[in-house]
Structures are given as C-alpha cells and as structure tokens.
C-alpha cells in the first residue's frame, strides 16, 4: 500500500509541473500588453518600461517561468495589481469558503442521490423510479448558476430564514463550537448561508449519483450471489443494503471524486451569483479587472486542490479495492 501511495505521489510531480506551465502560458501568451492595459492610453514609454521591469516582463519567457515557479513553490504567488495585497493571502482567505461550499454540495448530492438511486433500482419501473430518472435527466441538463438564480428569486426572496448573499462564519468552525461549547447558533448561521449555493452546485452531481447508483445497483442485484443470499432466506433489506449496496457503491465513489472537480468549477460561477467570498469569485473579479497575478494564482490553486482531491480518491479507492494496488 505504501508503495502504491509513493508511486502515485511521484506521478503527481510531472502533472503539477505541467499544470504550472499551462497556467503560466495561459496568462503570458494572452494577446495585448498587460502593463499597457493597466496603465492606460496616456502612459509614457518610460512608465511602461519601469513597470515591465518591476514585474520582470522584460526577461525571457523561460526565466520568467522559473522565477514564478520558484516563488510559487515558496508560497509566493505575487502581488495583486489592483489591490496591492499578496495573492497568497487573498487566496488563503478564500480557499476555506470555496472548499466548504464544495464539500457541503457533495454531501447534499450524496445524501440525496444514493438513497434515491437505491430506491429507484429496488422498485424498478415504479413511480419513484420514473421520478428519479426524470430528476436525473433534468438535473444534469440544468446549469448550476441558473438554478442558483432561480433559488434566489423564488426561495431566498420569499423565505426570510435563507439569506440572498454572502457567507457568515465557517460551518466547520460552527461544528467545533457545537462540540466544544454545545452552542448551535454559529453552525446554524453558517448553514443558513451555505444551503442555497450548495444546492445549486450539488443538484447536477446529485443527478449523476442517482443515475449511477441506480444502474450500478441494477447490475449487482442481477448477480448470482444476490440470488443466493435471497435463497438463504435473508431479509430483503439486508440483501439490498449489505450485499448489493457495498458492491454497487465502488463506481459511485469514483464518480464522486471525479465530480469534485466539477464542483470546484461550478463554484466559480455560483460564487458570483451568491456573492460567496471564495476563490471563484476572486478569479472572476480578477478577470474583469485584468489582475493577472490573481488569475494565475487562483487557477493554479484550484488545479492543485483538484489534483490533491483526485490523489486522495485514488488512494482511498485502493484501500477499498486491493486489486488496484497490484496493478
């Protein structure tokens, strides 16, 4: 197992390098001179040259890259052009909010999607099955940010309990306070704010999970060992939940990992809709202001988080399924 983890870690190195090169090139190959755009039409040639020297734009591209990479490895992603604050600081203040949103979205998707998928499979052809399949199809086809807009208009505006914008305290912090001080108010306040954005992002994933759980369960329920278990006279519930579900969930776990990336991507837009103070909203605002150190750092950070999540999923998958370790 340790060997497998080490191998996966080593495989991460070229991927991360590739990610860094791509992110760097994306910003530096963009047409137009960022400095000139920043300074505006009236800037003199000296002003442009001076700022170019400050940002190192006068150096050859590969030197700029190595400079940027070596700084990034030390946690220095440069300084925001517009705000004059370190990009690392800006990102680290917001990463928690984005991860919280993504995690709550995944939890909602899993908590609703898996039971719905199981019921649909067990009662194949029933109303529940029909309903869940329609929900899955519509859910996959609905853009999360539009669902967010709809929830704002038709839920948040009408239900006082659910706020329209922003975030109020971390729910992880709220959980900690609940455990240590037995106070539930901080957690509730956090949940109140995260609920609607999380539902808008999570619905698409819930649709995918429902559908996959259903098809995976249908396949497993047709297997010989399920018939054997039933023939032994086992209670139907035990057969479904213990024998079938355990085997049916493996592909579902994989898709949850893969979909986590989609959650991070969806968060970028949904954060803008709900004014959620996360990395996505920071990136979108930075694009509007052409604040490229933030764009570069933000996209890099999201990709690295995504890569780490995938790594974690692979490792946990190998823990569950020994065949992978010896592949």
């Amino acid at each position: 197992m340790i060997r497998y983890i080490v191998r996966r870690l080593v495989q991460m190195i070229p991927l991360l390098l590739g990610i860094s090169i791509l992110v760097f090139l994306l910003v530096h190959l963009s047409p137009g001179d960022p400095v000139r755009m920043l300074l505006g039409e009236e800037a003199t040639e000296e002003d442009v040259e001076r700022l170019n020297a400050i940002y190192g734009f006068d150096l050859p591209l590969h030197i700029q890259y190595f400079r940027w990479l070596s700084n990034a490895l030390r946690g220095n992603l440069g300084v925001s052009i517009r705000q004059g604050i370190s990009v690392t600081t800006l990102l680290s203040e917001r990463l928690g909010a984005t991860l919280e949103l993504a995690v709550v979205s995944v939890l909602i998707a899993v908590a609703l999607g898996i039971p719905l998928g199981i019921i649909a499979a067990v009662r194949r052809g029933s109303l529940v099955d029909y309903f869940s399949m329609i929900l899955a199809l519509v859910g996959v086809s609905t853009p999360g940010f539009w669902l967010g807009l709809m929830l704002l208009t038709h839920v948040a505006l009408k239900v006082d309990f659910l706020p329209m914008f922003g975030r109020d305290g971390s729910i992880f912090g709220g959980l900690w306070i609940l455990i240590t001080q037995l106070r539930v108010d901080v957690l509730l306040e956090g949940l109140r704010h995260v609920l609607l954005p999380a539902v808008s992002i999570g619905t698409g994933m819930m649709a995918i999970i429902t559908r996959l759980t259903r098809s995976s369960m249908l396949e497993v329920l047709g297997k010989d060992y399920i018939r054997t278990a039933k023939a032994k006279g086992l209670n139907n519930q035990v057969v479904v939940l213990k024998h079938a579900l355990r085997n049916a969930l493996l592909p579902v776990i994989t898709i949850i990992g893969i979909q986590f990336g989609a959650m991070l991507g969806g968060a970028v837009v949904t954060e803008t809709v709900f004014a959620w103070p996360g990395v996505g909203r920071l990136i979108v605002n930075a694009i509007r202001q052409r604040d490229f150190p933030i764009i570069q750092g933000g996209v890099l950070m999201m990709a690295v988080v995504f890569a780490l999540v995938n790594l974690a999923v692979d490792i946990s998958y190998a823990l569950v399924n020994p065949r992978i370790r010896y592949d």
Partner: protein
Amino acid sequence: MKQFLRNKSAVTGSIIVGILIITAIFADAIAPKDPYQMDIWESFRPPEGLRGEYILGTDDMGRDVLSRIIVGSRISLLVAIVATGVSLVFGVTLGAIAGYVGGITDAIIMRIMDLILAFPSILLAIAIVASLGPGVVNAMLAIAIVRIPAMVRVTRSMVLSLREEDFVAAAQALGLSHARILFRHILVNCYAPILVVATLNMGTAITVEATLSFLGLGAQPPIISWGRMLALGREAIRTAPHITLFPGLAIVFTTLGFNLLGDGLRDISDPQLRGR
C-alpha cells in the same frame, strides 16, 4: 432506424434538437417582434401569455423576451456545432493516432490530455477565454479544447481494441498504408461511441457557452445569447424574475434534448445498457 424510433430517449431528444435547429434557422420569421427594438416605456412588462402582446414579457430595455430567446438560439446552436466539430476533428485524429501508433506518441498525447483534465473544465474554459479575450470565437475554441480529452479517450480505446481484429491484419497484409487502414478501415467501425460522445458534448457546449456569456466572457453585445440575457436579467431578479426564468428554461430544454439524444444513441449502440 427501427431501433431508433423505438427508443423513447432518442425520439424525444431528436424532436427537441429538431425544434432548436428549426428555431435557429427561421428565427427572424418566427420571432414575433424585433429582438433589438428598445422601448423604455414598455420595460419590465411581465409575461402576458399567448394572447398578450409580449408573450414572455419584456426586459429592462423593453425588448421582447420571447423574440430574444428565439434569436439567441442561433448562438447556442452555432457554438454547439462549431465547438463540438473542432473537438471532434482534433479529438478523433489524436485519439486514433494514440491508439494505432502506441508507444511514445500515445504516451505524449495522453499526458497532454491528462493535463487538460487536471483542471475543472469550466475553470479552464474561463481561463482560456480570459487569456484570449472575450468573444464567441474564443469561447468556442475554449469549449472545444476542454472537450477534446473525452473524444480522444473514446476514440483511442475503440482503436486499441479494433487494431487487433483480423480485418486489420488482412489490410496490413494487402500492403495498405497505415493512414489508410486507420482512417478508412478502423475509424469507420467506431463511429457509434464517437457519435454518442459528440452528441453529449453538444449539450455541454450549450451550458458552458451560457456560463461564459453569463460571466461576460462569451458573446458580446449586440449579439443575443441566452447566457447574456441571464446576466442582464440578474440585475432585476427582484422586480422582473421572468427575464432570468425563460432564457434559463431554454438552456435546460436544449441541453436536455442533446442529453436525451446522446443517451438514446448509446442505448441503441450498446443494448446491454438499455434502461439503465
């Protein structure tokens, strides 16, 4: 064809896609009003139903929402076709080469695809458009790039399995060139899964274009696109929620159409999956 007509998803999907295509082609004739016509006195009119003057109401500038949705279908369809077409050409070519040639070529192509997949796809599309500059063409390019890996993977896996078939060995024995074997003999046998992925990609392309336009990175004024309508309507969700409702429904409806069609085609090409 018989199988196709018996498949409910495929039939429903193709009806929806058909409606989209007809709407886009005949948009000018179908639209009840001039979609660009502004009339401040008529702004924010709520939907008036089939008998009213403004069936789906008007926007902040008093423009007819229904007409704008009808004309906006053009951009959605255009982006879906062009972006999917570009990803199809590049994806199938790269996937076929990777699968047929193998070795280091395969490794290089697949590592590049891994790199594209290392980013959340919406985020990568946003970053590409942010870098190239906003606009429909760049949005199409970005969407094409993020959808290439799916195409490469499915083509490669098909080519890998077909490469070992007898008819390929026969073609090789006849002395046919590799390019001819690959493009004339192998690829024609893997069109079904490629078609499925391409159809599903078209649905994704419509959603991603709407997302980019919503963020101001896709279609620029005066081009009408559903995503931009949502962005404009967002300013008025309290007073005129219908401006955001209907363009969104149009996006869901067309994406659903492509997804249904893709699912149906998959069921037909792989009967084992039917009903799952």
